[in-house]
């Protein structure tokens, strides 16, 4: 081993340690930022020593590309709204997949087509794995991005024979992959495999409803890690394998947590379900639900008379950008000696932990955010529950109506509180497209309107009452 190779190897080792340390520090809010910084330094080290590699002579090309990429990434990250974080992460994830796909394709093209060599069997296999996973991650993430940002319909797109078509395509793709492994210098199998993988990424994500998107984003994140791992095998590079394994594991764990939170198996998520407009779903039509309306003035009076309040935030709060006024409400209530907590459902929002980030943005202390298991017994002893733009996570049909598509999903037991105020723009069903029977409950009051506007009115009312 030459000195240079030694430095490179030790650099990769240092980078791997920094990645592991970084994730370890991400486990606590107080050290998380430092953890992310360590991980970024690890990346810098890995890139730095890679540039020492003797093969690399085309500095200009590399630097120009890195500069452009840095500018794009940096600007995108600085401009994005906190509410749009999930789609941004989905998009970046797709780019990660694209990178793996391009690296592996480039390797195969270089070795087999341009130099006429025949890669070893193991290298050839990992190359096609890397290309396939990278391509599926790319187009799958793009569709997830489209669905989350509303550019593609959040509804599940299903047609008859869909699963059969996917199966046939998957088999064709494997066939093309095997052919490509045996004849790596041939363009046709390589392009065929690449094309089908890109198509499969689209086809496997379109039938999944918007409510299941957090699971999909998390799973695709895991894929991008696995793709990086496979690339590591292609290039015989340990740091790629270690970093890829960390990402793969994190994606898998988050996917599992979310599936558990919805009481669904990963297979049922992937085959589509929730988001489908099912005719047989809920027997209760919107016309049959009789709701009581409440106006902000009366809501303020209800809060005035309460001694405990639980706030249930959902994506509607994020859309209305209401998190800051919600924090103001929390402070006003606390000043009056009212106990305020936030109940966080594991799949509230568009990403696991999305609500926590939004509320943290609004300076809500994170110890006020209580997870579902810890808070569910408290609802029965709570005076007022304020549900802001959340639907499915408080729908009692999940507990009581076996015909409901969300039956079996653990929910926040908001319906048990003395009074439930539901802040919602209209009677339209939520993201999962399911009627919510809670709205018709005797203790439920609907506060129609934009969450930010109505809650601001409640806050103003409370301030007036105080003076």
């Amino acid at each position: 081993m030459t000195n240079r190779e030694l430095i490179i190897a030790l650099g990769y080792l240092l980078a791997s340690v920094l990645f592991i340390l970084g994730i370890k520090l991400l486990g606590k809010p107080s050290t998380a930022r430092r953890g992310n910084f360590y991980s970024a330094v690890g990346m810098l080290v890995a890139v730095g020593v890679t540039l020492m590699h003797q093969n690399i002579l085309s500095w200009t090309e590399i630097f120009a590309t890195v500069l452009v990429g840095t500018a794009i990434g940096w600007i995108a990250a600085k401009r994005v709204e906190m509410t749009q974080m999930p789609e941004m992460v989905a998009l970046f994830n797709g780019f990660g997949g694209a990178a793996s796909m391009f690296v592996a394709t480039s390797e195969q093209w270089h070795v087999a087509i341009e130099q006429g060599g025949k890669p070893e069997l193991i290298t050839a296999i990992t190359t096609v794995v890397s290309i396939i996973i990278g391509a599926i991650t790319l187009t799958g993430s793009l569709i997830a991005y489209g669905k989350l940002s509303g550019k593609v319909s959040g509804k599940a797109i299903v047609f008859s024979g869909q699963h059969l078509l996917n199966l046939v395509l998957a088999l064709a793709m494997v066939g093309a992959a095997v052919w490509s492994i045996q004849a790596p210098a041939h363009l046709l199998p390589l392009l065929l495999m690449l094309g089908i993988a890109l198509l499969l990424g689209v086809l496997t994500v379109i039938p999944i409803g918007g409510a299941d998107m957090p699971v999909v984003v998390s799973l695709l994140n895991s894929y991008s890690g696995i793709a990086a791992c496979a690339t590591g095998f292609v290039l015989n590079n340990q740091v790629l394998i270690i970093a890829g394994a960390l990402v793969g594991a994190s994606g898998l764990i988050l996917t599992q947590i979310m599936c558990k939170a919805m009481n669904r198996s990963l297979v049922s998520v992937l085959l589509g379900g929730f988001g489908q407009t099912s005719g047989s779903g809920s027997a209760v039509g919107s016309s049959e639900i009789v709701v009581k309306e409440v106006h902000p003035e009366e809501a303020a009076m209800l809060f005035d008379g309460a001694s405990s309040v639980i706030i249930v935030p959902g994506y509607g709060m994020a859309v209305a950008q209401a998190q800051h006024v919600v924090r103001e409400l929390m402070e006003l209530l606390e000043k009056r000696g009212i106990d305020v907590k936030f109940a966080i459902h594991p799949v509230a929002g568009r990403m696991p932990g999305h609500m926590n980030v939004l509320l943290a943005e609004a300076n809500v202390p994170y110890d006020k955010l209580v997870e579902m298991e810890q808070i569910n017994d408290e609802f029965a002893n709570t005076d007022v529950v304020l549900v802001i733009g959340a639907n499915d996570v408080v729908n009692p049909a999940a507990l009581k109506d076996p015909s409901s598509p969300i039956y079996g999903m653990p929910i926040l037991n908001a319906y048990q509180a003395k009074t439930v105020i539901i802040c919602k723009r209209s009677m339209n069903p939520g993201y999962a497209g399911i009627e919510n029977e809670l709205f018709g409950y005797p203790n439920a009051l609907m506060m129609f309107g934009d969450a930010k506007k109505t809650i601001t009115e409640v806050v103003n009312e409370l301030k007036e009452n105080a003076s």
Partner: protein
Amino acid sequence: MDTQTFITLLYVLILATFVGFELITKVPPTLHTPLMSGSNAISGITIVGAILATGPEPGDFSISKILGIAALLFATINVVGGYAVTDRMLQMFKKKKK
């Protein structure tokens, strides 16, 4: 790649996966979004692969080089954007001044 190297890499993969599972199950739900975004940034490690792929034969614009440059561009966006977004999120979790 010979079988020996392959097995060594397999060792690395399996051990790293165990470390990953151990570390990540300890992350509280509050930090799940930054975790996902941060690990997404780590997956941009493909940038290393991309640099290696763009390396050979400078000046010569072959298809493999164009693909390598595309890989480098996407990986860089993923890395820089991923870390910057994660940092923005985590800034919000710093201790609040009363």
